[in-house]
């Protein structure tokens, strides 16, 4: 492996962050970003699913027929999501009820399948595991940021704890359009920052 683990990790978390670069996989998780607690549970679930799926797919890559790789990856992911779903129902029944179908939708989350297709299928299990964890962590950080802002402005609380000052709540932030606007702003800032650093590198050379 020519690429070091540290580089894979940094790529996933920042340089190749799935949300800033590709805007992938927002489907299932964006919907729960109006409450920080739900988002955190969902993100942990995604990190777990992405990590173990990437590892398994990579471990099985030599014996998977090329033509069947997408359906076999999908079934591997689905099996792990069933484990996650049962775990949540057993230990966090309230949050599981609030998340509803979105836990199951991790299966079709484009990030998981995207990382499996783009990285795990060609690499050894350990780098694939690192890649899986880091890209899911990069993704989760962005969603937690969005969740903190949405819950803060919309309900006046963060993770259920009220903010110490009073203001008129922005109800729109906890409704669907708020999520679209927040994500747009986050993508905007991240891209602007990326462009600025690229230009700075060009001029310094």
């Amino acid at each position, binding site marked *: 492996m020519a690429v070091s683990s540290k580089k894979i990790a940094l790529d996933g978390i920042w340089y190749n962050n799935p949300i800033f670069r590709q805007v992938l996989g927002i489907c299932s998780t964006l919907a729960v970003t109006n409450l920080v607690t739900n988002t955190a549970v969902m993100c942990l679930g995604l990190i777990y699913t992405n990590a173990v799926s990437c590892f398994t797919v990579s471990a099985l890559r030599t014996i998977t027929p090329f033509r069947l790789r997408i*359906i076999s990856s999908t079934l591997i992911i689905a099996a792990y999501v069933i484990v996650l779903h049962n775990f949540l129902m057993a230990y966090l029944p309230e949050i599981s009820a609030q998340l509803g179908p979105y836990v199951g939708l991790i299966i079709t989350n484009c990030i998981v399948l995207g990382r499996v297709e783009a990285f795990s299928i060609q690499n050894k299990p350990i780098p694939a595991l690192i890649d899986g964890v880091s890209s899911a962590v990069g993704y989760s950080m962005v969603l937690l940021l969005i969740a903190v802002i949405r819950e803060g402005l919309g309900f006046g609380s963060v993770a259920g704890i009220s903010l110490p000052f009073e203001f008129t709540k922005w109800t729109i932030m906890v409704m669907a359009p708020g999520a679209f606007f927040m994500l747009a702003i986050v993508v905007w800032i991240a891209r602007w920052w990326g462009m600025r650093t690229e230009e700075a590198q060009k001029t310094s050379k």
Partner: protein
Amino acid sequence: MQEVGAFVIFFASIFTSNILLTNFLGMCSYLSVSREIKTAWGLGLAVVFVMTITCVANYLVYYHILVPLQLEYLEYIAFIIVIAALVQVVEMIIERTSDRLYASLGIFLPLITVNCAVLGAALFLIIRKYDFYQSLAYGAGSGIGWMLAIMALAGIRAKMSRRSKVIPALEGPGIVLIITGIIALGFIGFSGIVQIN
């Protein structure tokens, strides 16, 4: 939930509980295949088609196979296999019977297997305990609602690409998300008519 009529669900799933604009499902293909009206139309049609069929099929699989065998926890795997198999069958039938339809839908059908909206609709109809006709109405309505959203976006993007200058950092996904937010804001106006959740 049971007593709501099928037509009400059909209407609500298009306008007030649009699967894309209120549940964020199917975002990936929505963002990437909305550059031109023609391709958006093709994908939209394919989604309506597949979603109607898979909602009915998944309803039958869940209540007539999984529930009697007490295998409800396998619903995710069962639904994915049903969706993948049905998309494959639909693709084969279209290929044999209609060249014109295949030319316009063919390339989009494989994409739909991993469209979260299709799986999402199937999971919603189980969670909300819809009966057969409600499931049919919900599938068709959600598909049409998704098509409506992607067509609206494609129309705006086509106009925008000719006339408007967008800030470089906001180009692509950024501006599309803002447009989607505004469309979603418009759809909130419908929410007074009828509400399902």
